[in-house]
């Protein structure tokens, strides 16, 4: 029944919890850096560190390629990026860290897209992205905060997010439409939900709460709330270059959180 005890971990952040426990579960195995990586890291960083939702680890690492740098990131996590703290024992760390370093010595496409970030910023502004997104203190809290998105997401993931936003919708940004008892429709981001109530963040950044017994319907959107954008190739390149440059202050708590459900 050990599994129940895993829920003792104060954080109920599901993804990092599962990952850190997976690491813990491996603690007594003969450590194999690659196996540890595939089980614990590849879910975000991709097989062989090629990048997925999380950034590619092939090529220069944003937070340093030296062994102590890599250890620091694994042990302490990176606020605002979705990278959690991991609870590996020393034995596993000694196997995992050199493996991650070996990945960084591969040449990868991930972290340094070509393009002009300054021109990309103009695309961002003209596309009115700040109507839904926030960078630093500028913009809207409706969509994901982009302050550290360059550190949190791979280039390819950002590209897909712009062209096909529905390909992967983080759980805390799922869209929902509620029709209240008077027939009024509300479409927004589902911030929280339980057996009896549901809370939405509306595009005007206000919150609205419903008692489920008093509503006519609640429909989860199958598609992302974000529309698909079409750009000229060089504009897209520049925009991605700009977004990839957004790494924010390393100790920032702004940015992407992995709290799937507030309690």
């Amino acid at each position: 029944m050990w599994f129940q005890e895993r829920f003792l971990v104060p954080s109920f952040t599901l993804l990092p919890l599962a990952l850190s426990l997976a690491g813990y579960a491996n603690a007594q195995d003969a450590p194999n850096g690659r196996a540890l990586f595939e089980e614990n890291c590849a879910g975000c960083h991709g097989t062989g560190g090629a990048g997925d939702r999380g950034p590619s680890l092939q090529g220069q690492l944003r937070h340093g390629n030296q062994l102590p740098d890599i250890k620091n990131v694994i042990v302490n996590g990176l606020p605002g990026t979705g990278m959690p703290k991991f609870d590996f024992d020393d034995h596993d760390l000694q196997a995992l860290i050199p493996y991650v370093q070996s990945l960084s010595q591969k040449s990868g496409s991930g972290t340094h897209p070509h393009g002009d970030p300054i021109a990309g910023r103009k695309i961002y502004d003209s596309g009115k992205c700040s109507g839904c997104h926030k960078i630093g203190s500028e913009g809207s809290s409706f969509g994901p905060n982009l302050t550290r998105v360059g550190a949190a997401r791979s280039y390819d993931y950002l590209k897909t997010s712009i062209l096909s936003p529905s390909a992967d919708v983080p759980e805390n940004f799922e869209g929902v439409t509620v029709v209240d008892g008077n027939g009024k429709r509300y479409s927004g981001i589902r911030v929280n939900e339980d057996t009896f109530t549901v809370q939405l963040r509306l595009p005007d950044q206000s919150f609205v709460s419903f008692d489920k017994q008093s509503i006519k319907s609640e429909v989860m959107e199958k598609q992302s709330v974000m529309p698909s954008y079409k750009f000229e190739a060089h504009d897209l390149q520049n925009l991605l270059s700009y977004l990839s440059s957004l790494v924010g202050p390393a100790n920032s708590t702004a940015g992407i959180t992995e709290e799937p459900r507030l309690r």
Partner: protein
Amino acid sequence: MKRILFFSTLLFICKIYGADVTFGKLIHAEQDPSEWLTYWGDYRATRFRNLKQINDTNVGKLRLEWMFQTDAPGMFETMPLVADGVMYFTTPDTSVDAVDARSGRLLWRYRYRIPKTAKYCCGTLNRGLAILGNRLYYLTPDTRLQAIDKRDGTLLWDTEVASSAGGAYGGTEAPLVVKDKVILGPAAGDDGIRGFIEAFDAKTGKRLWRFRTIPEPGEPGNETWGNNSWKHGGGSTWLTGTYDPESNTLYWGIGNPAPDLVGSVRPGDNLYTDCLVALDADTGKMKWYFQFTPHDTYDYDATETPMLLDLPWKGRMRKLVVQANRNGFFYVLDRETGQFLSAQAFVKTTWATGVDKNGRPIRTPGLEPTQKGTVICPQCSGATNWMAPSYSPLTHLFYFNVREGCDVFFSKPPVYKEGASYWATSARAEANEHQTGRVTALDPLTGKARWKFPLYSSPWAGTLATSGNLVFAGDEDGYLMALRADTGTLLWRVNTGSHLVTSPITYELDGKQYVTMPSGSAVLTFALPAE
């Protein structure tokens, strides 16, 4: 005259705070609604109270009577006891508190501090106390049994149940008092311990008997452990057992084998893991066992409540033991013989397609945890778990919280090292799958649901039934709720502000009924407003 008044006042005080809890009171606990004397509220674990001041016509007016903050971080899985107007509970940070059950005011606090050198398995998780005479019994998280004076919280004796030097064992369950014995078992089967159930002398703390949940060579059952795997076989108990005073029999559920998700290192059925065992309470000698999940590779402990019911089974009154098992089936056994009577799935179960005539599961071939991950239902933490069910003799229904959903099960053979986790696990929900739950009212005679009340998330809290045609239940999002016992209609709810991980209790003092539920680090007690 003044003198007489003084003494009568003193007598009155003594009556409130002084009476001893006898074995006779424990046997008849369910008939005294002013008290809640055992983890399950009664030896049979029906968790039913004949209290109807709060009922299906007025429960909507239920409101907070008092709240007691322990200010302690951690998981509040305790089950409070109520005796003579005093409520006793373990706190999330290893203290024991006594509060006035009418007002929630603190009467004393026993601060147990685990020695810094101690190693133990499961954090400071604890599920409560046992009571006998003027003593409370506390199995500490570092696996010590302590007797505490219930009048002032002083420590009377302190016995080591399992060594905390190696760091593998732990104490999570509330002990069970039977006659003059305190009976308990340790946690942490997943650290490669060998589990046991033990009895201690309630007066002195002296060890009286021990039942090994994993048999040694030469003992029956050891042959079900290939490759000498019995040495680290697991089989811890985690939760309190039940007791039938008429036959003097203990019923105790046993946890999973170790390592949990890898069966190849322990060929065989792995007795008595995932079993219900019936033990003689005087000697610890086993009368019978029934294994729900032979050679478990899913972590489907059988430590859930073994509830004792006397029901007309196929036209004949029989002494039954029923259990909603973590593996997704609801079982009915004859508790005198251990004979299997029925099993019905109450969630989606893919690991087994059903059971044969002896109750042995019909496994789905090849559905095993793998390195790449295999989707198996129910989820690793079970279709139900430590949350308490309840049974109403008025509706004849069994009320329990159900966890619906599947997990991706990963496995990799681990290497045993003393004091470290010996599990091969990780399991997680499938991507984008939200694991839901429900309160289910089940007819134990048919295994069929009478009604279901859907819950948004898989719950960790249990239920309580009363003669007010009510079932109280908790959910994972923090709601304590009251449902109509006969129909499942929602009548009252309150958001307690923290996910709920224990089960509600009720008691009546001075003609006033209370409902208590720990939440977060607080104990919340509800009552109707004064007329």
